């Protein structure tokens, strides 16, 4: 049997999620036996032509060219998996969706006319059908291995759908929000990190993104009304790394709290 072919594609991102594959120091050579690494530009000069069995996509869509490129990648891939906060929820650069991007360009680049960018940073699923989304900023490398192995074997990946709170309890941590008064996004955040921040005495800042069916609004109101966070602070905390997650629309589209660019009246 032929080995399934693997391709790794990058859009707007920091490279950290695809680096997670190279960070599998004990497993990398075994992975290379299991799949044919056909197109992984960060790691290899050898680029085999598609179509590919599995495509890992890192990064968010921020340019017109990338809007076209993701369509081509989808057509050339049997299974498309988006990895990381940028690919699944727009990434930190999706904060532009709530701001004036022209102003941002002017703030960073002396010659704004040289810059070609869209007004929004959007997840891959907004543009094409995605077969699986792996959350995290960055993703957990062991979850990535599980997802790769699962799709290679033709089964669904065993990745927890719990919240960070569940992992935190399992780790035996004392709740940092209750005991230390930290602002913690554990109740609404996707599991996967192993409750890292509470284990280091700090509140979760949501880098694994919003969990399915999380009650974002209640936590948000709690942080604002019970913990005295200002609206600006609470919005900033919840939005940071997964700014274009659909679950956050309930907050971001509310007039009191700030609005998505596309929801604003002209």
């Amino acid at each position: 049997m032929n080995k399934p072919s693997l391709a790794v594609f990058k859009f707007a991102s920091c490279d950290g999620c695809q680096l997670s594959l190279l960070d599998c120091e004990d497993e990398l050579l075994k992975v290379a036996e299991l799949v044919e690494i056909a197109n992984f530009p960060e790691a290899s000069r050898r680029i085999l032509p598609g179509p590919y069995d599995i495509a890992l996509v890192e990064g968010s869509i921020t340019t017109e060219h990338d809007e076209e490129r993701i369509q081509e990648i989808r057509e050339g891939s049997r299974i498309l998996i988006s990895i990381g906060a940028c690919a699944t929820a727009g990434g930190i650069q999706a904060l532009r969706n709530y701001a004036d991007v022209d102003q941002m360009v002017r703030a960073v680049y002396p010659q704004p006319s040289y810059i070609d960018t869209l007004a929004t940073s959007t997840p891959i699923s907004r543009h094409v059908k995605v077969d699986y989304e792996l959350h995290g900023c960055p993703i957990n490398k062991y979850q990535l291995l599980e997802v790769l192995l699962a799709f290679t074997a033709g089964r669904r990946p065993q990745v927890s759908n719990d919240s960070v709170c569940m992992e935190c309890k399992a780790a035996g941590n004392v709740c940092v929000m209750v005991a230390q008064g930290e602002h913690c996004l554990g109740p609404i955040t996707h599991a996967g990190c192993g409750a890292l921040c509470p284990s280091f005495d700090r509140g979760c800042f949501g880098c694994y993104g919003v969990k399915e069916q999380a009650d974002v609004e209640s936590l948000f109101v709690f942080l604002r009304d019970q913990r005295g966070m200002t609206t600006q602070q609470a919005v900033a905390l919840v939005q940071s790394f997964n700014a274009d997650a659909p679950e956050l629309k309930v907050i971001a589209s509310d007039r009191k709290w700030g609005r998505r660019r596309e929801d604003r009246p002209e």
Partner: protein
Amino acid sequence: MAEKQIPVRAGIKSRRIKVDNLTRVEGEGSLLIDVQGGELRELKLKIFEPPRFFEALLKGRALGEAPDITARICGICPVAYMMSAVHAMERALGVTVSDPIRQLRRLLYCGEWIESHVLHIFMLHAPDFLGYDDVIGMARDHGERVKSALAMKKAGNEIIRVLGGREVHPINVKVGGFYKLPEKAALTALLDPLKHGRDTARDTVLWASSLDFPELTRQYEFVALQHPDEYPMNDGRIVSSRGLDIQQTEFPDHFEEIHLPHSNALHAVRKEHRSAYFVGPMARYQLSRDQLSEETRALAKEAGFLRDVNNPFESIVVRALETHYAFDEAIRLIEQYEVDGASSVPAPARKARGVAATEAPRGLLFHQYDVDERGLITRANIVPPTSQNQFTIEEDLHDLVSANLELPQDLLTARCEQAIRNYDPCISCATHFLKLDIRRD
């Protein structure tokens, strides 16, 4: 950059090289080289990594968020971003951290130098010297060397995991110190793999020094931090091999970023002459190699490298030497570490400006922030190492191409790619993948 005349060589006046993808670098870009009539018409290192506007989205954020937010600029060297950010903020707030915190930060940086340098030496650069497409291909013939390299990388990553929480985008760094100090036992458990890694790093230096280096010698202005007591990582004055010696706050007076139409990265130049300069391992080695440990210096001598290094292809040896040093230093720091005092010092807000430069694995990383009395960032400016090296890379390519016009197309192209990799460019940082497009008629 001013275009220079390439000396006309007998028989070969025009060449056009085109490669669509430059690989094994971090990020997206392309290179265009066009030689016509013996004249270099065009040489552009084009960065088309989409811009992410970090400096703009930092505005209005709390100063304490700067380390976690700027870490997301680069998944390869997040520690560097965190370090420059916390130092800049602490200087703005007039905060001095305790000595144990300072030592732990240096240890964290050792972890990042190890994982980043080993990644680059073996996974990105060595395949060029040995004629492989990638490390997987290399592993088929050099299995033990690749396995021992992966073990070194893991040892470096373990430092970051224990001290920072995870390898990519650690979570334990804060303005004023750390969220939680590590237990001594958690660190001493790292000693065995680190000592083993130091032995492997020693072999790596000797192996790297035996590679065939393409010829290219240039006179660079090397720029790096320099510190009276230690090989530079977190602290020091900014000095150059041409006599510059300034405080970090003076950086904007002597360096500036200019914006060219072909690139989403800003090119940094020396302000005085708008000239190129060189940051990274070779610069640090040129300016501070006396500060390396005795063992690393003895190793450099044994390898025949305790000398000025002006051939950028030899940077792989310097990177290996720094890797050896980082192991040595990490071992020393762990052995002397005692859990002592609070995990952080208070850092109350005030209106001020703070700047800091630290030594990312690939070179000087400058951060500058203005913060207000509420502790919010009002202005941010970040100058990453790759945008500082971009002109130097272009100048290297210019000399390399003009001296090698007789080489066959595929060899010259491969040589150009290798020359770009000499800099371990992180285009994710400079905004971000290189696509090589060398045209010659």
